[in-house]
């Protein structure tokens, strides 16, 4: 936070920054800690659908730069509200024509209302350390007041019981980070489910148009699925892709496994990491509001964006509608067979896969993006193949290596009897598919995997237990504090010792001087002379008393 110190002089604020009160001078929401939620294509598309042709737009809270730039470029009039002064300043410098309000949400209440208010980051970062944090419903009330009649609100709400929370080894909100001066989790008005969210929006005078569940992770949501879509029996080809978070975080469980269960149990809405609600304020006169057709779902897959339709998916922009391939995900078929130690099924499936690849199957496919309906393989939204198609043998090797890495990383049971490394397991699997591959092929396969840009090897360390971690962290903190304490005491001690030595020396010097002084003639004479006078004084006192 100190880094911004040289820029906090608010007298030098750009003209388009308005300090409304509660601004945080030494704070940034853009980096570290929570950071900015990494909204990409799906959010941009959703906002594109609800942006009014002509009207005021307000962005509340931190949003990724690309999203802000896009909204500012497309809206006829836009403003932003941020609590951090350095962030506001940076944004104002990037967009000199944009009004940037800096401060607490509640203090913006007297502004003219907006056609569209976007708060994808939610309400938790609209308060500031300068004042006690408002309850969620109060903040929502303040936000809803900014929406003009007939206008729209797009609000993100983190689910405290989101599936991503189940697997976190370090539950955020309990690690006492710098942004936790007002601890989260004790506000009774914070929505405890989709129903409570609806009620909250209704009581703020808004009517919910559509509510989306965002997956796979609240920090990097890649897909938005409407409540209606989650009501259907979604094909596995679709839900499997939603489950894999790209995590560099410490986890206690395989997020894939847990999220698969969430979809299987049809709890996608309740356990979504994040909800995005699109709500409208009823217009004053009837029929005045602009009707907007909202998508059923938006799914990002790498760079591509697909819209979910009642009968399939459609690539945006302007792609053809295609049905989602049916069948089960190959990785899951293999994992199941491994769990059953059913090597026959594995052998058969891998041989079929090898044959399919020989016949010109998708080169960029992988076990986690292929479905098998019992007869045929089909690739789900495959990434673009490399310019020079590699040999089918290398393609197979890559698919199997990737599977091996993921199998071992997830700690699934498998039938191979000795402890294996992924490389050795891959060569075994290739053998089971009827191919003899060598380490040279493996290198090519690894290169191909890197080229396709979806690394199999995640940075995640071996899973650790929450308690173990927190105990270790606590000890580390105590050790740091103890070391700091020792260092401080050492400094103090040496300072005092020096002082003591100095004082002792001074004392010795003084004593020596006093002794020397007592030996001088003058002193001795004055003592001699003083004695008779003292005696005389005593006699006088006796006589007079």
């Amino acid at each position, binding site marked *: 936070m100190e880094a911004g110190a040289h820029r906090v002089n608010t007298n030098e604020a750009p003209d388009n920054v308005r300090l409304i009160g509660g601004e945080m001078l030494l704070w940034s929401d853009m980096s570290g800690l929570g950071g900015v939620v990494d909204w990409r294509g799906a959010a941009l598309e959703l906002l594109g659908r609800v942006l009014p042709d002509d009207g005021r737009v307000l962005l509340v809270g931190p949003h990724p730069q690309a999203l802000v730039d896009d909204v500012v470029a497309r809206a006829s009039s836009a403003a932003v509200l941020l609590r951090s002064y350095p962030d506001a300043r940076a944004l104002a410098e990037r967009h000199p024509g944009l009004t940037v309000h800096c401060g607490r949400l509640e203090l913006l209440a007297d502004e003219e209302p907006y056609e569209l208010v976007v708060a994808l980051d939610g309400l938790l970062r609209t308060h500031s350390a*300068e004042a006690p944090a408002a309850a969620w419903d109060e903040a929502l009330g303040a936000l809803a007041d900014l929406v003009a009649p007939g206008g729209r609100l797009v609000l993100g709400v983190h689910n405290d019981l989101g599936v991503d929370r189940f697997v976190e080894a370090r539950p955020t909100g309990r690690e006492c980070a710098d942004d936790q001066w007002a601890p989260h989790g004790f506000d009774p008005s914070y929505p405890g489910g989709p129903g409570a969210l609806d009620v909250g929006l209704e009581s703020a005078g808004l009517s919910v148009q559509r509510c989306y569940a965002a997956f796979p992770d609240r920090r990097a949501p890649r897909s938005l699925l409407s409540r209606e879509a989650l009501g259907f029996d979604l094909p596995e080809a679709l839900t499997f892709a939603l489950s894999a978070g790209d995590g560099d975080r410490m986890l206690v469980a395989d997020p894939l496994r847990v999220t698969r269960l969430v979809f299987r149990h049809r709890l996608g809405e309740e356990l979504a990491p994040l909800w995005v609600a699109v709500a409208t304020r009823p217009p004053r006169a009837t029929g005045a509001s602009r009707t907007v057709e909202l998508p059923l779902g938006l799914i990002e897959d790498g760079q591509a964006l697909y819209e979910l339709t009642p009968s399939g998916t459609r690539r945006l922009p302007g792609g053809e509608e295609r049905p989602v391939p049916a069948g089960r995900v190959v990785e899951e078929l293999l994992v199941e067979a491994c769990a059953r130690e059913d090597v026959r099924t594995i052998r058969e499936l891998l041989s079929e896969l090898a044959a399919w690849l020989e016949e010109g199957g998708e080169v960029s496919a992988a076990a986690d993006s292929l479905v098998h309906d019992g007869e045929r393989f089909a690739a789900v939204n495959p990434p673009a193949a490399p310019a020079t198609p590699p040999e089918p043998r290398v393609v197979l090797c890559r698919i199997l290596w990737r599977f091996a890495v993921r199998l071992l990383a997830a700690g699934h049971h498998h039938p191979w009897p000795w402890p294996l490394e992924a490389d050795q397991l891959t060569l075994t699997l290739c053998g089971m598919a009827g191919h003899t591959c060598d380490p040279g092929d493996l290198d090519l396969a690894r290169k191909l995997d890197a080229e396709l840009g979806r690394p199999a090897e995640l940075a995640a360390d071996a899973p650790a237990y929450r308690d173990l971690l927190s105990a270790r962290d606590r000890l580390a903190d105590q050790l740091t504090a103890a070391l700091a304490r020792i260092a401080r005491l050492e400094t103090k001690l040496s300072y005092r010792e020096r002082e003591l030595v100095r004082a002792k020396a001074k004392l010795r010097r003084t004593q020596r001087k006093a002794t020397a002084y007592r030996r001088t003639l003058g002193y001795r004479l004055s003592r001699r002379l003083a004695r008779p006078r003292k005696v005389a004084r005593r006699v006088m006192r006796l006589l007079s008393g």
Partner: protein
Amino acid sequence: MDESNHWYGHSRILSRYCGLSEDTPNRIQGFLQHGWNYLHGFPPNDHWCSPGYPRFVWSDVLRRRGWSMGRRGHYLIGAPWIYLLDLEPELGVRPDREGTIWYPFHGWEKYSVSGDHARLADEIRNVETGPVTICLYWLEYANPDIRQAYGSRGFRVICHGDRGSRWEAKGRDFLRKQLIELRGHRRVASNRLGSALFYGASVGCEVAVYGDPMQYEDERPEYGGTARRLRLWPELHGTEVDRELAAEVARRELGFEYQATPEELRRMFGWKRVRTA
């Protein structure tokens, strides 16, 4: 722990509040906020506040702000001033309060402020109607030119003394002297918001903030400058300020709600040996 814990007789006041001897205050295991502040209770370069020791701060906004800046271990006890008021409900109370006590913003041992005292004195004379007492920090009091600037305009010039230390008894009566003076005056004024002003407001003085706010030669930007004080407390600036409102703000800034019990303080300060198994 730190020298600043013993400045202005703070540790002595708290010792007495805890029922201990005032003459030899014990070491406080932690860091006591020693003056009103609108950062996190301590100067920006607070590296001397070792982690692991509590920071005894006055109000909750300092805790929140400090937390957001990576500081931890805040413990709210309010200002030592409120403990003095608790101990001395009657000290210096006078029915006939009159005049203004004026605290020009002061530098300290390592920083001096730059500003024109003569011009400030003229401004004070133009605004104040009753008798004026100028209270200078000992550094400025030691400068005859500054004393002269105020004295020559007929103001009474005083000083509450040195801020003292644990070993020297010099600063022990600083706050007591200040309390007596504040209870004797009807009004307290300064060119900057500061501890003295809130102390005054808390004992019923009218408040005023006006005049050149005088800059430190090397003022830290973390505070956000005079502009920020004006934005945070617009209602406290001016020659006439609503007294009720000022008292309310003072209660908040001095942390009256956070007054701790003697036993709690004894334990928090490490003044009570804790027997461990």
